[in-house]
């Protein structure tokens, strides 16, 4: 006889065996370690039609053991951008107790040989320290001084920070990554760091009367499964500016063709354009562009234009000094100008600055 219900399938065998095929059960709760689980059965029967006194079984009992299970996750959504010389730069992680017992956790930041977020690891930060988010505001503050997690309840999470200094010598795109490793330690005493639990009781005989330790954790980025530890990787990436300059030339006019298909002949006006591009993610400040007036040509006074606005100065001594004031001659040029300097106050990230000036060919 087979009976199908909406969700579950029950197969009843007339021989007397009955099997329930039930879907797997989601964990509704995490029974605390040390909870006694008792089972008792009763048996009623009759003899010659007379009901007899109910028989009560013994009590089968065991204590719920300590399931050690934790996860460490990286809270930062992307690698943390830093600048050379940056102090106390913060990486943010979270540690969650998925076990059934209050635990302490020892914390360590392990220098990773591989870069976080798929980056290529290139350097090590210095003064690396780990702090717990003691004031529970999910932001590193001076109040966060604990270096281990104290008494984390079953199911609870806490934020942990790794702070490091970035050496001044680092350059754009350098990456330093750290695995935060949380090691389960004995809980139960607030304000004192419990001893690390380095092994579970897998080798010990099962004992229904003892609270034994069972590692049930998975593998993190720098630890194995069922080792009482978990880890996650986060990292720093040095972001500075990357400036590139490109110079183009065009003949604007000549004495014969004027502006129509002008040729670079004596007397022709030639324009130069210098494009400075900041492809980094930080603005570049005080960007200085110096260009020499080419040989056999004279600077056309007043021809300098910049976007954005910039401070323009001139040299008549090959760039040694920049106090020269150009004076236009008969054709508007000043042959004494040897170099033109443009200083942009700032070139924003992912933007460009353009300078143009003109010369007349001798």
């Amino acid at each position, binding site marked *: 006889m087979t009976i199908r219900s909406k969700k579950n399938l029950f197969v009843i065998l007339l021989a007397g065996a009955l099997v*329930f095929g039930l879907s797997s059960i989601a964990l509704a709760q995490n029974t605390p370690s040390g909870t006694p689980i008792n089972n008792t059965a009763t048996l009623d029967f009759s003899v010659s039609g007379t009901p*007899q006194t109910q028989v009560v079984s013994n009590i*089968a*009992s065991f204590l*719920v053991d300590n399931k050690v299970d934790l996860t460490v996750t990286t809270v930062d959504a992307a690698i943390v951008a830093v600048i050379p010389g940056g102090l106390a730069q913060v990486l943010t992680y979270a540690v969650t107790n998925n076990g059934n017992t209050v635990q302490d956790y020892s914390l360590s930041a392990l220098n990773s040989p591989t870069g976080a977020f798929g980056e290529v690891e290139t350097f090590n930060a210095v003064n690396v320290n780990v702090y717990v988010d003691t004031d529970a505001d999910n932001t590193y503050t001076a109040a966060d001084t604990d270096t281990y997690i104290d008494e984390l309840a079953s199911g609870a999470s806490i934020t942990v920070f790794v702070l490091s200094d970035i050496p001044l010598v680092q350059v754009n795109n350098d990456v330093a990554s750290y695995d935060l490793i949380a090691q389960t330690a004995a809980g139960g005493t607030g304000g004192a760091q419990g001893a690390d639990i380095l092994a579970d009781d897998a080798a010990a005989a099962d004992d229904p009367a003892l609270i034994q330790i069972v590692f049930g954790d998975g593998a993190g980025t720098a630890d194995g499964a069922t080792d009482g530890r978990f880890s996650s990787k986060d990292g720093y990436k040095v972001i500075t500016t990357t400036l590139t300059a490109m110079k183009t030339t065009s003949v604007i006019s000549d004495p014969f063709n004027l502006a129509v298909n002008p040729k670079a002949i004596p007397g022709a006006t030639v324009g130069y354009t210098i494009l400075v591009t900041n492809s980094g993610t930080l603005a570049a400040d005080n960007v200085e562009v110096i260009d020499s007036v080419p040989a056999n040509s004279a600077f056309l006074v007043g021809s300098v234009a910049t976007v954005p606005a910039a401070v323009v100065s001139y040299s008549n001594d090959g760039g040694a000094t920049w106090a020269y004031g150009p004076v236009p001659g008969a054709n508007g040029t000043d042959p004494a100008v040897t170099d033109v300097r443009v200083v942009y106050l700032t070139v924003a990230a992912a933007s460009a600055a353009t300078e143009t000036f003109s010369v007349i060919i001798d």
Partner: protein
Amino acid sequence: MKRVLTITVLVLLSAGVANAAVELNTVALTEITTTDEEGQEVTTRVEAGKVVPGDEVIYTITFANHGTEPAADVVITNPIPDHMVFTQVEDSPYQATVSMSADGGSRYDAPRNLTVTDAKGQPRPAKESDFTHVRWTFQNPLEPGAEGSVSFRAQLQ
């Protein structure tokens, strides 16, 4: 130990009256999978000593009729222990009919016939976590000297 002694006295009393001394014992077991010398996985059952949330426990209830009269109308009832969720019945000898209760033992029926009241006050079919008791109702008498066991599985929450 005191409780076990009390039960023994009970059993002896009933035996004295009916001459059908039925003994009942329960044990909690867990399955352990090991690899033998030939690389085969072997599953053995041991007394449940290391149990953490998510583990399944097999409760085996053994019975024996030590008396001289057949024990008829045998009904074995086992409340599902606290913190455990019933998963399945494993063994039901003597053509025992299995029924469940989802209301603390007031009503027993086939699981598919049981309902509970949901949060909105509407009845819905009972599911695994609703079961409070499992019961075996034997169709055949337990003859003198007969012994056997019933068992069910439950998962620690």
